[in-house]
């Protein structure tokens, strides 16, 4: 969650207002406690007063430090400002690695403030995927979540205990790294007669913290059957209490919830987007492949059309491996028109989808859908696999930034910026393209946006290149003009192994990127807070 402090509660309220009014913020430190700055997954930090289009260029902006940790950072880093660690106030970056390790780093220097190496032994390929031939390690695979009020960080990793694999959630004290009382707990959910089987699933989606419950989404391991999508909830106040479970495909394989953004929430409901799998809700069934789902905080699902959406070509999408769930659904702030409450998402088919949050619409009931990436006749579609970002520029307009893997119609490449406007004929908000890049982005991360209120908006994204030669890029948000590309300066700014399915974060004038360790970018003459 994006929050500011001191006087955190009032400033959080202020920030909340900012999202909807576009008013200007003063320079206050922020916290990044969850993926994409909040449970709405908007990916917008509206309180960035240091980094502006005017000073983001290779002369004044670049790599500050690279903390090479013990492995890859598959999820987004998180950030707390002004945290008391070892008796002094620090701005702290938190990162969890595929080695099941968690690190707290000094945001100014990258030095380790505390670490919890190998909370449990990570799995090798032969254990996780059944292949002798890879050397990857599987530990923490997602973005943790922080409850600042309780000084708690929740992180999920996979481990072997005896003859079983388990997904285990640890709660660490953000000030010391110590495991908090009552933790860790293994994920052990059931839904009706279906039992959660850790060995079937992968936990890539970011953790969400909603009303004291941590929610964890699960997808498959490369679609190797059998697997079932799940959302599991753990009560942080009573970690040993029975867990909540929702199985997205209790009868047949599939319906993984694998987007890096996990599940989103408007505070009263959870929204999950599923991938491949059977869909039979419209025939009285319980399989929810290729759907946007509204779940209650107890993870109850009504199976009514008002609480799910699936494209009318769901069967084709399923057959073609064009998962709807490439992106987490953004819970948009209220929009003008007769349908003010909207969700926005995108799929591997390359289409963007806008649906009515008040009534998701069942089969084919979208407000708008449009192909942004991936040609119709592509032999294999990898259109949208990143969670978009939202920005309200006040008079400059409201935007969505969608990253895509493959070229799309109308020369869409890399990022398609969409402008949200009221369509006078339907009296509904619709999107249309504002700009696109001139060059593709190879393996884009999820983008984020920073701005100082409605001004100085910048889109940040990592081109992962799926390994070596990843690069951080910054674009002016309303025009798409390139401001910075870290590969321009091969000697000092390059880094490797930026991660897909996640995003960089920006906080208090610094950009933090999960890679092999954490890479920090900022102004070369850093502005004192």
């Amino acid at each position, binding site marked *: 969650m994006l929050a500011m402090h001191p006087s955190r509660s009032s400033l959080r309220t202020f920030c909340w207002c900012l999202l909807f009014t576009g008013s200007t913020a003063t320079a206050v430190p922020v916290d990044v406690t969850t993926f994409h700055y909040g449970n709405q997954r908007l990916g917008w930090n509206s309180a960035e007063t240091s980094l502006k289009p005017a000073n983001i260029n290779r002369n004044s902006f670049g790599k500050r430090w690279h903390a090479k940790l013990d492995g890859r950072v598959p999820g987004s880093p998180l950030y707390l400002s002004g945290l008391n660690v070892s008796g002094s106030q620090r701005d702290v970056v938190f990162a969890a690695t595929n080695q099941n390790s968690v690190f707290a780093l000094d945001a100014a220097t990258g030095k380790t403030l505390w670490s919890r190496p190998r909370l449990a032994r990570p799995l090798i390929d*032969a254990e996780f995927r*059944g292949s002798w031939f890879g050397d990857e390690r599987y530990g923490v695979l997602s973005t943790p979540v922080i409850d600042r009020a309780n000084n708690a960080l929740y992180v999920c990793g996979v481990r072997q205990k005896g*003859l079983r694999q388990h997904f285990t959630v640890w709660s660490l004290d953000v000030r010391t790294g110590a495991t908090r009382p009552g933790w860790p707990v293994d994920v052990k959910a059931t839904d009706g007669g279906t039992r959660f089987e*850790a060995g079937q699933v992968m936990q890539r989606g970011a953790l969400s913290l909603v009303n004291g419950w941590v929610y964890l989404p699960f997808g498959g*391991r490369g679609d190797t059957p059998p697997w079932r999508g799940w959302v599991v909830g753990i009560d942080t106040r009573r970690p040993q209490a029975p867990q909540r479970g929702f199985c997205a495909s209790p009868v047949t394989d599939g319906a993984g919830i694998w987007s890096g953004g996990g599940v989103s929430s408007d505070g009263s409901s959870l929204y999950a987007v599923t991938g491949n799998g059977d869909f039979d809700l419209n025939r009285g069934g319980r399989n929810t492949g290729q759907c946007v789902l509204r779940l209650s905080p107890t993870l109850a699902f009504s199976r009514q059309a008002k609480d799910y959406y699936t494209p009318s070509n769901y069967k084709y999408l399923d057959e073609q491996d064009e998962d709807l769930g490439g992106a987490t659904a953004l819970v948009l702030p209220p929009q003008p028109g007769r349908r003010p409450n909207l969700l926005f998402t995108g799929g591997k088919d390359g289409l963007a989808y806008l649906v009515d949050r008040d009534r998701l619409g069942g089969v084919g009931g979208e407000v708008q859908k449009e192909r942004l990436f991936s040609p119709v006749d592509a032999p294999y579609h990898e259109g949208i696999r990143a969670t978009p970002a939202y920005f309200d520029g006040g008079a400059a307009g409201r935007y969505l930034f969608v990253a895509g893997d493959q070229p799309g119609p109308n020369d869409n490449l890399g990022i398609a910026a969409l402008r949200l406007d009221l369509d006078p004929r339907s009296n509904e908000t619709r999107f249309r393209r504002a700009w696109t890049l001139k060059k593709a982005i190879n393996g884009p991360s999820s983008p984020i946006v920073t701005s100082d209120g409605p001004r100085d908006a910048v889109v940040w994204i990592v081109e992962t290149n799926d390994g070596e030669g990843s690069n951080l890029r910054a674009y002016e948000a309303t025009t798409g003009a390139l401001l910075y590309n870290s590969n321009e300066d091969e000697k000092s700014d390059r880094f490797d192994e930026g991660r897909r399915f996640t995003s960089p974060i920006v906080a208090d004038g610094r950009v933090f990127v999960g890679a092999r360790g954490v890479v920090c970018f900022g102004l070369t003459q850093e502005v004192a807070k």
Partner: protein
Amino acid sequence: MNALVLAITLLGGAVDAPKTQLEGTILSIRGNIYVLRPSLRPKITRVLIGPKTEVMAYERTNAAVLKPGMRIAAGGRYAKETGLRVRWIEAAEKPIGHLKGKRTGIRTSPDGKWGNTGGTLKTVQPFVIRDDEGKEIKLTLSPDANIWHDFLVDRRNLLIGTRVFVSGTTAPDGVVQAESVAPNRDHSATGTMFGRILGVRGRTLVVQPRYTDDRIQVDLARNVTLQREIRLDPDTIKVGDRVTFWGEQRNRPYDQPRSDDLKAIALLVGPGMYPRSTGKGGGSVLRGRLTALEPDVRFRVDGGKTIKIVVPAQMITARLVPVRPSDVRAGSSAMLVLSRLPDGRFSASSVVLDASPWVGYGG
């Protein structure tokens, strides 16, 4: 098919540009149309296996099999300065399967660090191939290279339940026109099928293969092995228990690096054992006693040393108990090992009631 064979086939595919490659299990056979359930894309696919389709087998071997004149596909790490260091090879006495495709020069990955090539083997020492434009390419054969030998087999190896790797093109109606089909010979016995028994009349069963609405008639062979799988909670298995592990070891002469570690497919309590592939693909069956569960699973083999057990996701933990023919009843799920009789019916040499597929056998 072994993952590395798949890898090299896909690399080879980059040269030959076949449009479709899939691995899956044969669910039904209707004339020349074989219905497959792909392992990684679990959607039913129809495959036409026509008179020109080559039915191939792969066998892992070592460099001694390589002879001048063989058709070769090879891949590995590439650097401009040092050329291609071969980590895997497919070789055949004559051009079959994707080894038939034209190969020229060394193709490299976009990052320039991996490469593949192919052609006809000119000399083994030094390792030189001649590509299809006559250019000689000297390669460095890595001592830990994985080498597969390809050869043709009879299409009667393609049975319901057989897991196969298919290479071909997809017709507009979605049917894959197979150019080559290779039965997988790893782990399970050829003809292993999972399904539900719908009816029993004497020694004849009516079986519905998984994922289909088909009905097939299966006769129990005279010497059929009948067992029932009883799943066990892994948490009930303790240090000191006598168990049997079935799995893969990398301690064969061609494995590099060699290790006695065993990647388990199943942990079995008692004498019962799943039917498995004959020959090299059947894996290791080791009986002994568990010596540790944490931090690693360790196991002392009867009369041998203590080894580490790698426990993959969804390793089966079960006891197999013998049953009588009268225990085979309609309604049971079952694993059957089938062969085809001359009149087209199926004969089962082994039936395991209540058996569910192990991971990787999803298709």
